[in-house]
């Protein structure tokens, strides 16, 4: 008999949820309590387990679609009556009356988010793996079995000794949907809602000061080009963002206050964390996410490049958990990846400062009394003036600028 599982209210008073990922497809056998789907509500992302054992007859919505509470999520034949699966091809979802066809065979390989992440970390492409789980689902064991590590396509552009490239793995792609929204009122939700809340809090509570500089990036570009020739096989490409992140972590170790933040409402304490955890602002289809590189000051350039590539790729594919997105003590934002020169970035709540970098481009600068065209890197430090006075902001900014102007400093420890 078909068992209709409608989207439940899994919080207290939720109205809808977004289908993030189906773990099952039409025709799959499922057990009771087996995870069927990951959904994202305004509160959290959750796996919904099957209420019955049986065969999947139809999925109520495609990935990316928002379902309202009470709409059909999935239909499962629980085997109690065999004559019953006529309505299985499509389901008409009430409300928008859009017809959702069952998932086609061309959908991306089935695997749990943790498995996707594992594959990503091991440099494996899920499309190349044979799933031995239910319905061809790729399991963690499948990933481990086929792990002769090799560079993943998405993460590792071939190491190259080509002339200087200033583009970045962290570069946001300008999607067709950017800036588009239909006429009307739209409820703030999901990542947009979270960004809105955080930014409002930061703007209301943190008195920002910004200090800006523009450094001669000649040696930086040279350093990057030369270190790329030393790339270990399979290692992720070093980008300007990698080098900036390492320089920031180094400066934060010298000035723990910049790594700290003000706490309490009203503010009543200064917190100096015992680790340096860098947030990397990342544009994704869902909106701005800031995955965290933990203990960033313990990473060398290569490890930093790997971690930034992995976490930002996971952020874009939606595989990060909330824990991967919290706990940053300082944020680096590459607003220049779309060409900007100067900006005034906002400090995320719970941090004391933010470092922004603009686009590297040839610009006229004065060198030894002459105006020359040289690549320059604009940098901006935003600081919480409750915690950081102008002198500290300047000294910190200069520490970063000095290391970027002569990146050999970064190889000298301390």
């Amino acid at each position: 008999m078909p068992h209709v599982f409608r989207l439940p209210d899994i919080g207290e008073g939720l109205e809808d949820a977004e289908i993030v990922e189906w773990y099952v497809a039409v025709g799959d056998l499922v057990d009771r309590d087996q995870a069927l789907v990951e959904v994202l509500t305004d509160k959290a992302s959750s796996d919904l387990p099957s209420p019955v054992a049986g065969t999947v007859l139809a999925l109520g919505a495609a990935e990316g679609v928002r379902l309202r509470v009470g709409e059909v999520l999935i239909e499962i034949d629980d085997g109690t009556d065999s004559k019953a699966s006529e309505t299985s091809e499509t389901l008409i979802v009430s409300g928008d009356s859009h017809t959702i066809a069952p998932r086609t065979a061309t959908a991306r390989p089935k695997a749990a988010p943790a498995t996707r992440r594992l594959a990503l970390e091991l440099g494996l492409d899920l499309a190349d793996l044979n799933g031995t789980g239910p319905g061809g689902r790729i399991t963690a064991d499948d990933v481990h079995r086929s792990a002769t590590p090799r560079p993943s396509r998405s993460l590792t552009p071939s190491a190259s000794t080509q002339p200087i490239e200033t583009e970045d793995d962290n570069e946001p792609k300008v999607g067709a949907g950017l800036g588009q929204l239909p006429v009307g009122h739209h409820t703030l939700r999901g990542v947009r809602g979270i960004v809105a809340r955080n930014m409002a809090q930061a703007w209301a509570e943190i008195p920002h000061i910004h200090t800006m500089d523009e450094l001669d990036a000649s040696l930086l570009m040279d350093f990057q080009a030369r270190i790329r020739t030393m790339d270990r096989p399979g290692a992720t490409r070093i980008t300007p963002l990698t080098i900036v992140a390492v320089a920031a972590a180094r400066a934060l170790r010298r000035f723990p206050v910049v790594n700290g933040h003000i706490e309490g409402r009203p503010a009543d304490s200064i917190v100096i964390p015992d680790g340096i955890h860098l947030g990397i602002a990342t544009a994704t289809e869902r909106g701005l996410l800031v995955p965290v590189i933990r203990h960033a000051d313990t990473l060398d350039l290569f490890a930093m490049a790997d971690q930034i590539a992995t976490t930002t790729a996971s952020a874009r594919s939606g595989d990060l958990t909330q824990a991967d997105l919290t706990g940053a003590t300082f944020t680096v934002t590459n607003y220049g990846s779309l060409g900007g020169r100067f900006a005034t970035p906002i400090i995320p709540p719970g941090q004391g400062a933010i470092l922004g970098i603009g686009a590297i481009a040839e610009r006229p600068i004065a060198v030894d009394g002459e105006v020359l065209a040289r690549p320059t890197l604009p940098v901006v430090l935003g600081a919480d003036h409750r915690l950081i006075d102008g002198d500290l902001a300047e000294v910190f900014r200069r520490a970063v600028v000095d290391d970027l102007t002569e990146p050999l400093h970064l190889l000298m420890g301390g």
Partner: protein
Amino acid sequence: MARPTETQLRDILVDMVEARAQGGRLWNLQRQGQVGTVAPVDGHEAVVAATAHALDPLHDWIFPQYREPLALQRFGPEVLEQYMLYNVGHPDGSRLPPSVRVAPIAISLATQIPHAVGLAWGMTLQNEPGVVTVFFGDGSSSEGDFHEAANLAGVLRAPAILLCVNNQWAISTPLHQQTAAKTLADRATGYGIPGVRIDGNDAAEVYDAVDQARQRALHGDGPTLIEAVVYRLGAHTTADDPTRYIPAEELEAAQRDDPITRLATHLASKGLWDDELRTTTEAEALARIDKAFERAITQPLAPDAVFDHCFTSDTPRMARQRNALLEATTATGAAESGVSQ
């Protein structure tokens, strides 16, 4: 001073493992839309189950908060049955048979503490043997009800055990924002009663502390405040996302001190526990909760049942509301079956 025997410890572990297994199933039932909001017991199993085993179900009372019922089965199978009835939204779920000395769960924080102290005082007035144990959390210890009840219990020398399960988090509020006191047990001084602080993940230590408090109470020496330190190993409730505020490292550290792993390791070293026993224990626990759930969802539920347990008879306003509700449900023919949250 009474350490539990190894056999008692094994019985306690069985209850803990059953509570954990049933809690997992209950979480899934909530995610399937079949029960209302649930507060998981994960991380609290030792303090709840060991307390139940240190008490006398025939004479002693337990006032739970809302997280404990799955680990209270020593007080009778009815605890699980009524808890499941509560979870599907049936008002009768909060009514336990008189032979079961467990009070209904209390959602409003700390309200159960004055009730417990009142009952304990009443028992002395009526010369009834027995003690009343009341569970509450670190968050509840900031509520006025706690202070008033603890003070009164001290004045009256009520045979009560005030068992504060300090799981470090009041939803998302960490303990250091909850109190400036060094420990919650310290507060006992202000009420003139003994306060002890114990490791709530150590079933034997819990048993011992509750037993001593019980002996004191039975000898007329009054109440004891016990602070049992544990760590909430999961969400506050099904409506909560703890990954937003609990540092991953902190949770991992707490998981290494999982009370079930700890006691299972000890008993396995004595040859009293193994994986097979755990598997059968879990299977039995799941069968039992499935049965209790089936029973709960097949229990008739009148649309106006929500009015049934407020007063002996309806006030005029309630009577009007009850009639309006009955008319509305008859008119639409939509006396919805199943879950009402």
